[in-house]
């Protein structure tokens, strides 16, 4: 268990979520284990997990950009709704789907609080949701079963707060002028962007296709997934990748870390002879339709932040679909050459499995509103990766120019 705790602490730092040493993790079976330097019986984190009956919990002081964005929304929520009802409502698709809202706990969360009242508030918040935000932007999450759940929650909260912050700021620029509070928060967020993994200067050279066998295809998928995470185009807990070999679609498993795909790829025949796709990525239906309805043979899906932010930046006023853009947008919108389409996660009636494949016909990439980028190629991941990287770079430059 100590090794597991150390592994997640390292993973948080590697992803730029927090600086080394700025997270406390606790996990247990019938006894608690905790990050070095903390008392497993008295720590705020282990007592929170104990109060929740959870298997794991983590308290994370995020890097500056994430922390300032989260703190800004926490302050706004506390002001608008009061300490008992304060919550942050994410705008991106995945966080909204899987986390709904993020409760706010009044008071600072770092260093770990010692007072029983804050502990009680924290337990109350986490008995309702998977994660919560302190006034100072510190994040608390629990894993009912294992630490991985808390890690995914913290990663999602950081992404959600950053995306919401830039989206709202752009919206306020468009509709007038951001408040002084938000402008000063933006200055702090911008000064913290350097703490995050930088975009690669150029796309790396990836394995060359076409891939005629399963082994080279899987190896290329693992490489593409790893470098997409390392390049800051997606957090490890999200995104997916696939490659068609013959009539079998090899695709990352649901819940697999995109930078650790060894042994985490499902082989799914597209002839309907097997239900192996039951544990494939939840985006399997979209991938399957893309490779059967377009010339694409590889699909790479990431959540590059600035592409997601700009996908939600719309000029239309008085649009009848306002508030339902993620499922109902009818405008032909683009980021560069990449079309923006609505669509929810999965294969439901409003799922992106229906909207995305037609949009990718004749294109290298498409953006799902508030969700992420799907990049494709008929041969290998080189051009797909490059397309996603260039799109994100262009979006980042546009966003930073507008908020400067």
């Amino acid at each position, binding site marked *: *268990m100590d090794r597991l705790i150390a592994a997640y602490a390292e993973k948080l730092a590697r992803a730029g979520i927090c600086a080394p040493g700025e997270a406390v993790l606790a*996990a*247990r*079976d*019938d006894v608690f284990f905790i990050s070095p330097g903390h008392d497993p019986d008295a720590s705020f984190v282990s007592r929170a997990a104990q109060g*929740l*009956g*959870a*298997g794991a919990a983590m308290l994370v002081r995020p890097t500056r950009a994430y922390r300032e964005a989260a703190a800004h929304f926490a302050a706004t929520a506390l002001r608008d709704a009061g300490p008992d009802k304060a919550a942050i409502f994410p705008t991106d698709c995945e966080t909204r*789907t*899987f986390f*709904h809202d993020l409760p706010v706990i009044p008071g600072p969360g770092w260093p770990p609080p010692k007072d029983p009242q804050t502990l009680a508030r924290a*337990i*109350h918040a*986490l*008995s*309702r*949701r*998977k994660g919560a935000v302190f006034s100072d932007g510190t994040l608390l999450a629990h*894993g*009912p*079963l*294992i630490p*991985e*759940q808390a890690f*995914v929650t913290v990663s999602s909260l950081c992404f959600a707060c950053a995306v919401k912050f830039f989206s709202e700021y752009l919206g306020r620029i468009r509709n007038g002028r951001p408040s002084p509070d938000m402008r000063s928060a933006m200055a702090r967020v911008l000064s913290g962007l350097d703490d995050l993994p930088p975009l690669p200067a150029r796309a790396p050279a990836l394995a060359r296709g076409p891939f005629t066998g399963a082994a080279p295809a899987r190896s290329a998928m693992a490489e593409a997934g790893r470098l997409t995470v390392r390049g800051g185009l997606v957090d490890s807990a999200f995104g997916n990748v696939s490659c068609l070999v013959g009539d079998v679609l090899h695709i990352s*498993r*649901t*819940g*697999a870390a995109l930078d650790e795909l060894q042994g985490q790829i499902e082989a*799914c025949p597209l002839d*309907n*002879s*097997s*239900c*192996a*796709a*039951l*544990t*494939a*990525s*939840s985006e*399997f*239906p979209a991938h*399957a339709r893309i490779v059967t309805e377009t010339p694409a043979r590889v699909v790479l899906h990431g959540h590059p932040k600035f592409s997601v932010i700009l996908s939600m930046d719309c000029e239309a006023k008085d649009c009848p679909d306002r508030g339902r853009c993620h499922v109902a947008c009818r405008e032909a919108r683009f980021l560069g050459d990449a079309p923006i389409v609505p669509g*929810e*996660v*999965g*294969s*439901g*009636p*409003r*799922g992106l499995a229906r909207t995305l494949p037609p949009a990718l016909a004749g294109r290298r990439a498409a953006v799902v509103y508030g969700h992420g980028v799907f990049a494709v190629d008929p041969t290998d991941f080189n051009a797909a990766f490059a397309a996603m990287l260039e799109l994100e770079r262009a979006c980042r430059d546009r966003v930073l120019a507008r908020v400067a």
Partner: protein
Amino acid sequence: MRVTPGAILRVHLGPRGIETATVPHPSPSGFPGGRGLAVMELFDRAHLPFDDPDTPLCLAAGPLAGVMAPLCGRAVVASVSPLTHTVFDAQAGGRLAVELARCGLSGVTVTGRAAEPSGLEIVDGRATLRPCPERAGCSTTKIVSRLGFPGEVLCVGPAAARGAALAAVVVGRHGETLRGGLGLSLAAKNLVYVAVHGAHPVPVADPAGLASAREDVLRLIAASPALSGGHGFARFGTAALLDLTDSLCMTPVRNFRDTRFAAAKQVNAPALAALFAPRRSGCRACPAPCGKIARDGRPLPGLDALSHLTALVDNPDPHLAVAAYALCADMGLDPVSAASALACHAEIAGEALSPDRLLGLVDDMAHGRGLGRELAMGAAAYARSLSRPEAAMAVKSLELPAFDPRGACGLALSYAVSTRGGCAYRAFSIGHEVLRKPVATDRFSFAGKARMTAQSENALAALESLTACPFALLAAGLEEYAPLLSAATGIETSAGELARVGEEVVLAERIINARRGFSAADDDLPARFFTEPGTPGEDFATPALDRRDFLAARAAYYRIRGLTPDGLPDPETSRTRVMPWTD
């Protein structure tokens, strides 16, 4: 606004007909219903034998039944099991939960014994006993079709009439079979059927809140590969899992002697779909209905019955499996347990079951003839009678379902400690160990599995006390169901509070079982799983379970639950327990 939970209708059957009493639900806060309510009703009398007239038989709905809450259409039927002799609840799909809710009822508790074979009809909350000796021993399809009842019908067939411990309660026209020998519990009341119909609207405290909470759950269901994906349960039923258990070497083959079935591709869900062109059926308000009905009207088996009527009995013929399944439903026989008893016999006798022999033995089990009569008492009793107890693949006499525990350590532990015997859906470990939801865990390790088992058991007990389906955990969790409950009842609650209710439900079941003499010696697996490896995969082994690791995990589970090292509740707690959810 607060919604008062539906009342409990208590029905006593006696020589002079029935006496009824309607009592208010003991918890004005509106929960639990379902499994929690049934345990509450059974608690004081569950020390009695299953066929004692005072032993209750409970039907329980819950606060989310009838309000279009996603995946909340599962009522509970519970009593003392004639098969396991534990407290036993089984989830009934179809319309039962909704019909009870529309009667204004949270549940129905039946005691006593009718003077002659009868049907109990409950219409808009009023109970009527209808003697029907002519229907006793009839096939279940005949009973249901001839009744023409407008609501939901539960009935028993020839197997219950002949005293089979594997007798099932059969739900509705599509022949869903409830396990645990509950058909015999119904027959012990001299009931041939129970029919329920209600027409009252079900009140909701906060319709807008309910709609919003419902949207949250529906989004998650649409995003769940297992429920809504192109190869998920909505399209192929739970039989979709067969390909997964095969690739993971977890398919029980030849009475669990092997774990990979050579003919899996011939009998998997896509093969059934191609052969039988099924249509969907399922519970009321289910957005991912997992029932499948063949074009000719026969129900198609879900995973457990399909796997056991093929791989477990070494049968590569899907037509035979479907025929055997339909026969079991018609005869009111639990197909999973029946197949397991047949496989146990095949191993002990060294007999390969031909198609005619297989169908013949199923029919004999239902009609109490010859060898069939012995097998119908369950694999454990049959194997014991031949001094071969190790050949029964059962825990607490409940035959194991279609997941081999050597392929998943959490599953192994959950089979052992389950309060109703060997059941994969008590802690639903296959969710995280096989289907990777809510998170993927290492299936070949016991590390952390004690807590995961306890946590998941609590969550399931809470969900089943809301009439939610266990498969809900493949998409959502208590976090999403707490707002549904709050909106439906007008009582604020949280995931944490629901989990605590679930914990109390499990503890109450443990207390009942302890009173009935169950202890750690019963929380165990057949020896085969500790001594014989499963079939290896292409790039992995399927080793036998490590006995020491298993016992350490079980001891940790007892500590987490606050039980004694022998798996018993604290004696003081057990004597003074008052259900905490009764406000």
